């Protein structure tokens, strides 16, 4: 089964400045493959190239080099768009139309018959939680409601691949929960979801795989659990019946000791000291071990570290270029 989305060495340069001195590289040789049925989180700080990537995939802009395919066809193939849905960032639709009319208009572009359109439109508006407001003109909608309409229009054609650019933006916590549920539902239906976000919590909750971009480059990509699995920062040891002597023994190697209560302590050990030896010592001293758990990186830690790495790599490169 070919990947649903295949991106190879995708690069986008912009010419900036009045005299066109230097091209600004918004995206640098991005390569990714997203399998069918995946929920892929495309993460990165603002300005990292997430929206650029999505616009390249929707052929709103053209690549400087590289290529991409969706469902086996090159990006820009018009017929493939029948199976794609797209929610742009901070969407704006025609504010003189009502929500119903907008969805109906888009449905018309797919060529659905009138009765079919009616069912689709009302079903989707129900699903995204737009009730009687659907007959109001969009200019009267709040940002959150426009976002919901945006999601609805992305799904009007039951697409196999859905692209969402910052789908949670403008939504309150309830709205975000609804969208999360929706995305999981899409996954359960076997659809592929590619969404970009700078909110890591959403990615943690939804994605099977993630990619991290910073400064236009892919800093890391892979299964969430894989990426975080190797990144053990330390160990958390919970002991009971610890005597002051055993605590004193632990003090030099413990990064942090927390008194839980009644003789229970939580001790944070660094990676330098293998836990096996500590356990042996402790039981010799009469303390009992309640639990031993690895302390993993959160996605945030991972993210911040990778972004910093990418940033420094980029500035090194730019300095080298400037010298030339």
């Amino acid at each position, binding site marked *: 089964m070919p990947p649903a989305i295949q991106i190879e060495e995708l690069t986008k340069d912009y010419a900036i400045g009045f005299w066109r001195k230097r091209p600004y590289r918004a995206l640098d040789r991005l390569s990714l493959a997203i399998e069918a049925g995946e929920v892929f989180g495309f993460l990165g700080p603002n300005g990292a190239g997430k929206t650029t990537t999505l*616009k390249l995939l*929707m*052929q*709103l*802009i*053209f690549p400087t080099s590289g290529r991409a395919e969706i469902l086996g066809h090159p990006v820009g193939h*018009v*017929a493939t*768009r*029948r199976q*794609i*849905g*797209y*929610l*742009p960032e*901070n*969407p*704006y*639709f*025609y504010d*003189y139309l009502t929500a119903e009319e907008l969805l109906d*208009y*888009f449905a*018309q*572009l*797919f*060529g659905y018959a009138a009765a079919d359109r009616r069912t689709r439109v009302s079903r989707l508006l129900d699903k995204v939680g737009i009730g009687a407001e659907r007959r109001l003109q969009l200019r009267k909608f709040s940002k959150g409601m426009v976002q919901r309409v*945006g999601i609805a*229009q992305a799904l009007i054609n039951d697409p196999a691949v859905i*692209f969402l650019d910052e789908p949670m933006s403008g939504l309150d916590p309830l709205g975000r929960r609804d969208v999360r549920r929706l995305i999981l539902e899409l996954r359960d239906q076997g659809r592929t979801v590619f969404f970009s976000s700078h909110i890591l919590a959403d990615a943690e909750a939804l994605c099977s795989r993630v990619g991290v971009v910073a400064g236009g480059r892919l800093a890391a990509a892979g299964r969430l659990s894989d990426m975080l699995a190797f990144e053990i920062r330390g160990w958390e040891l919970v002991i009971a019946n610890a005597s002051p002597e055993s605590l004193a023994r632990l003090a030099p190697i413990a990064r942090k000791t927390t008194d839980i209560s009644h003789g229970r302590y939580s001790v944070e050990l660094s990676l330098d000291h293998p836990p096996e030896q500590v356990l042996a010592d402790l039981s010799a001293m009469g303390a009992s071990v309640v639990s031993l758990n690895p302390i993993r990186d959160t996605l945030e830690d991972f993210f911040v570290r990778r972004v910093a790495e990418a940033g420094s790599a980029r500035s090194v490169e730019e300095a080298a270029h400037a010298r030339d």
Partner: protein
Amino acid sequence: MRAISRIAVSVFRESVRDRVPYNLVLFAVLLIASSFLLGQLTAGQDVKIIKDLGLAATAVFGLFIAIFIGIGLVSKEVERRSIYALLAKPISRPELVLGKYAGLVLTLAVNVAVMTIALYVVLAYMTWTTPPALQTAWDAPGVDPALLKAVFLIFVELMLITGLALFFSTFSTPMLSAALTFGLYIVGHFNADLRNFEQVVESRSAAWLARGLYHILPDLSAFDVKTQVVHGLAVPGGYLALTTGYGLLYIAALLIAATFIFSRRDFK
């Protein structure tokens, strides 16, 4: 094909919701009011003035619609970014451009038709209330079918101006598009004077330049047969055909260029 018509209808619907029909009411009121006022003036001239006013107003209102909606056709969508969601649907960029053009032409057609009907209604009323003896002084009958020739050419001219506005709006801002289109409108109406330049200037190269410009710039003065029609002079079918053909070919060139530019643009 279906996509083009859908987009065209959407443009038309937008123009309706955009309060464009109000200018039609203004036009009708203008005509009716002036016809009553002019009824008091010297007999014989009021029909001519109504016809002049009616045709000129049709041309001017049509011009405003063509320019102000035309420049926004593409650039407003791009600026507001509603085009992002639109282009994700199964329509190609050329279909989008052509659909927008067709929509504005449709809007213009409806507006021009309504204004023409209003004009004829007023003229019919005038003809009905004027004694036949006075009517013999008129250059042309009150309810004159020849007026339609002038209206037709006005409409073709408006299609051309719309094409210009659309062309500019594929790559420049609304302000600049309006200025350029309006500028070409004015220059285009002085085109006939460019043709006679060689009789006035001394250097051959200036004369050649003027000639070249005469051919390249849109020759809008040729579409103006209002004077002939109002005075009852003949407008031969051959003239209509050649001028219309000129207009359609020029429009085709503009649409090809607009589609080409639009298809290659990055939408930031």
